[in-house]
């Protein structure tokens, strides 16, 4: 089984090549990393880093050829990319604790040996050995426990007070994993009196839940992805707040390259002698370095590299608009340098497109681009300042704001074309061949999106729904009108007006004016959409199986992708996480976190393209199987057969036999069933959030490893996407058995490939 994780195809989309596994041997000595009662350091000095070709490994920042630590994870590349001088060592000791949440899929991507999604005592122990460390206080005795050298990264920029970098987090030498809440590091200069929250060295568990959910969702929604959480570990610590209340802490173990603009800076906006080296090394690591011919061979082209990075940030910002997301607290350190998301605790989706903020002093939905511009300008300014008198020649000034704005406009057009439900491949054709039609559409959507009622826009403790219209609902519903056949323009406009669901506040006169404007913009939106769909219909060969297939595909994608991401509105999501942490504190039941985080993530993914690539895949008889993911011990996959059939396939491994009874060993409680029970087993499921249900009968079959299994096959049509949830029940003989439905509600979000997509996926498997 190949595990590809989220990003490969998307990274290809942004112009990065990928290959299966091609990492050159490292140049630094291999080391095991952990010693009993001792310490090992392994930050490279200045080395010529071999490049990692695989974009997915690059996004994770690991070198798979250099296995380190008890779990034999790949070496943390950030240590080499930034260089030893950019870290402060942190002597840390292994701690006991409880793994409150673990990301099984990510663990596999990182090379952690783990099967299925069941926590066993043995796995629990391995996780603690590999990930559970806290800083030793000066002079503290490790008491014979494992000691390891961690590395706190040095950085500057906004939002860190007078800290000199990571004040409460440090990197493990393996997995490029950052432990947040590790304790106070030597880079923490801020005092508890200045900022208690960032001075005590701990991290609240709630932050771990938020970051974990957003990490998975962000990996699906953003082409540069997001940092992700591997584990949340409860060590029993609390933060005692000055007002007497207590907050549960945790070790939050975070994955991804985690290279930030802030790493180039020292202090608020200065560079240092390391700045150019770090900037170049980071850009090179991420495949973003632009070079030009120099006196002694190729040399970095600093402004061109900067522009390339700006382009990536423009894309991320445009994707935020498309999915209705605000980051909330953009700073030099709260983003990765290639535009991947980082520090996700203030992020929020929203029902419409109001200009919301999630913290008072943060950026707003439409205004956040300015924050991004000023942070990127700070980055380039620091780089220039570090070059001294060479700056004028080697890094001439760039109008970062203008660069970002123009790249943003381009990216926004791309995103709005995507939001019509067209496949990205078709979108690209239209963008190059019909740019005016695409720009017109983007403008029409933006004009509607930006109409506000001017209320309080702080969406911190409540959901803000103050936009005048729901423009994404119009994009969501319009294509199904087209499926119903030719309707006159007047009827189409009326339909769009209905879908826009205008919510107009103010005086009667103001209302009339606003509604008139909505009416006028609705006409424009209809004309712009019609033009784009017509242009696509003229070019469908090679992208769609037929005109009808194209219309269905558009309707399904638009409906799936433009559904508001309700579960991640900040106020209710944070409330939910607070309740879960509370309940976990009382009961110690780790299932609570799994359910909250995984459920939320499953219901929030929206990118059809990314879903096709999410999970394992392989060839099966007569076709391919993709999107293989294990949820609560049940293997899920989408099957695409060469004869055109499509099935969502569920499988539960079966042990035992007819005589002694069959056992569903991977399910909680390992239920034992008779043959009659197995054959009478049914799955009641929904793909529309339980508005309607269907049932499918079990079959005795074999799983992908050829083992006996109970399987279910749900027929689905090409181009469909949705979230499958369900309960299993058996009514036979004297028995009635029902699987614990609550945990099964975590859901399986899937996308079904059409002929073209299946062919491309099959080709990827063969190559």
């Amino acid at each position, binding site marked *: 089984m190949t595990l590809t994780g989220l990003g490969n195809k998307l990274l290809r989309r942004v112009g990065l090549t990928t290959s299966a596994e091609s990492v050159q041997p490292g140049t630094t000595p291999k080391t095991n990393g952990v010693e009993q009662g001792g310490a090992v350091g392994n930050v490279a000095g200045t080395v010529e880093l071999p490049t990692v070709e695989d974009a997915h490994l690059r996004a994770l920042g690991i070198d798979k050829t250099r296995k380190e630590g008890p779990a034999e994870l790949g070496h943390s590349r950030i240590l080499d990319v930034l260089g030893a001088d950019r870290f402060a060592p942190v002597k840390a000791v292994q701690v006991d604790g409880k793994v409150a949440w673990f990301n099984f899929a990510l663990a596999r991507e990182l090379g952690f040996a783990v099967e299925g999604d069941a926590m066993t005592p043995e796995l629990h122990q391995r996780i603690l050995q590999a990930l559970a460390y806290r800083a030793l206080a000066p002079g503290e005795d490790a008491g014979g426990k494992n000691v390891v050298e961690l590395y706190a990264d040095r950085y500057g920029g906004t939002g860190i007070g007078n800290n000199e970098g990571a004040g409460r987090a440090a990197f493990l030498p393996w997995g490029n994993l950052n432990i947040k809440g590790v304790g106070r590091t030597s880079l923490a200069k801020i005092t508890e009196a200045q900022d208690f929250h960032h001075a005590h060295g701990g991290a609240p568990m709630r932050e771990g839940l938020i970051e974990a959910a957003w990490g998975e969702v962000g990996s699906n929604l953003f082409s540069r992805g997001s940092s992700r959480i591997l584990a949340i570990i409860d060590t029993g610590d609390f933060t005692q707040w000055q007002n007497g209340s207590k907050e549960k802490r945790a070790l939050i173990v975070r994955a991804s390259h985690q290279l930030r603009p802030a790493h180039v800076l020292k202090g608020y906006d200065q560079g240092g002698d390391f700045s150019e080296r770090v900037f170049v090394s980071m850009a090179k690591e991420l495949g973003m370095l632009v070079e030009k011919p120099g006196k002694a061979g190729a040399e970095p082209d600093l402004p061109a590299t900067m522009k390339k990075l700006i382009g990536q940030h423009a894309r991320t910002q445009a994707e935020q608009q498309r999915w209705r997301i605000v980051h909330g607290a953009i700073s030099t350190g709260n983003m990765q340098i290639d535009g991947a998301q980082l520090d996700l605790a203030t992020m929020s989706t929203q029902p419409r497109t109001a200009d919301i903020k999630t913290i008072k002093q943060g950026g707003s939905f439409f205004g956040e681009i300015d924050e991004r511009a000023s942070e990127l300008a700070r980055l380039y300014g620091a780089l220039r300042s570090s070059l001294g008198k060479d700056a004028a020649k080697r890094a001439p000034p760039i109008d970062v704001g203008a660069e970002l704005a123009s790249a943003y406009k381009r990216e926004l057009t791309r995103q709005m074309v995507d939001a019509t439900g067209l496949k990205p491949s078709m979108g690209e054709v239209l963008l190059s061949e019909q740019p005016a039609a695409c720009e017109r559409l983007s403008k029409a959507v933006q004009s509607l999106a930006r109409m506000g009622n001017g209320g309080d826009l702080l969406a911190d403790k409540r959901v803000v729904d103050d936009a005048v219209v729901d423009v994404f609902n119009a994009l969501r519903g319009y294509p199904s009108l087209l499926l119903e056949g030719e309707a006159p323009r007047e009827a189409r406009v009326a339909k769009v007006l209905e879908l826009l669901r205008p919510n107009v506040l103010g005086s009667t006169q103001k209302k009339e004016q606003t509604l008139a404007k909505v009416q006028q913009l609705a006409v424009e939106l209809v004309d712009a959409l019609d033009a784009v769909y017509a242009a696509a219909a003229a070019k469908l060969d090679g992208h769609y199986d037929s005109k009808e297939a194209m219309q269905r595909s558009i309707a399904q994608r638009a409906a799936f992708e433009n559904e508001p991401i309700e579960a991640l509105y900040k106020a209710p999501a944070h409330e939910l996480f607070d309740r879960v942490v509370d309940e976990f504190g009382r009961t110690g039941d780790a299932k609570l976190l799994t359910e909250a985080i995984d459920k939320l993530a499953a219901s929030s993914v929206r990118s059809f393209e990314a879903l096709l690539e999410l999970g394992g895949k392989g060839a099966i008889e007569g076709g391919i199987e993709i999107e293989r993911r294990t949820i609560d011990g049940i293997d899920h996959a989408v099957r695409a057969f060469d004869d055109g059939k499509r099935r969502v396939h569920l499988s539960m491994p079966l042990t035992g036999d007819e005589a002694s009874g069959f056992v569903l060993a991977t399910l909680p409680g390992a239920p034992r069933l008779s043959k009659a029970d197995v054959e009478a087993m049914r799955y009641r499921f929904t793909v529309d959030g339980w508005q309607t249900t269907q049932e499918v009968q079990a079959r005795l079959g074999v799983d992908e490893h050829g083992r006996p299994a109970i399987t279910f096959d749900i027929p689905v*049509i090409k181009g469909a996407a949705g979230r499958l949830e369900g309960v299993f029940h058996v009514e036979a003989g004297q028995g009635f058995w029902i699987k614990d*439905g609550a945990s099964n509600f975590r859901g399986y979000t899937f996308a079904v490939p059409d002929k073209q997509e299946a062919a491309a996926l099959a080709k990827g498997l063969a190559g």
Partner: protein
Amino acid sequence: MSGKPTPAAALDAILDLTAGQLALLADAAKRPDVDLGGVARTSFDLLLKGIKANVAPLTKDPAVPAETRARIERVVGAVEAWERSTVALGHHLIAVAEGWQCRSCGGDVARTAAVSGVALGKSLIKLELVCAECGARSAPTPKGRKVFEEKFGHLVVAGWNPEANGFQWDRR
């Protein structure tokens, strides 16, 4: 699932099932993108099935007082009558459509089924599957037709409203 059913075991199973369904509902109530009414319908349905499956064997247990056994029989009978009258197309559509292919486009996924001629009775009523890809209608396989007759045949009498059980219907 094994051993001789006893009133205590049945009670235990019913309590477990009830607690499980309540947990499921409480969980659904926390989630904004879930139709709580829909979850409640499924829960109620499964609860009835579970109660029936657990108490029905007690009617053959001589240790249970005759009066109680009679009562159990009445309740089980009422649950079965309810199940028969509310049987949903969605729960059998996949089985009815098994092996079927749309005559128009070759698709094999049925969006729903349509009936016509209710008064003709179960062996003559017209039954067609509606293709999820192209919307065209065509008859199911004989095996699919048989599943329909087994699951819905008892409903096919004059006065039946097929829409209530999830079918498309032309009112004939």
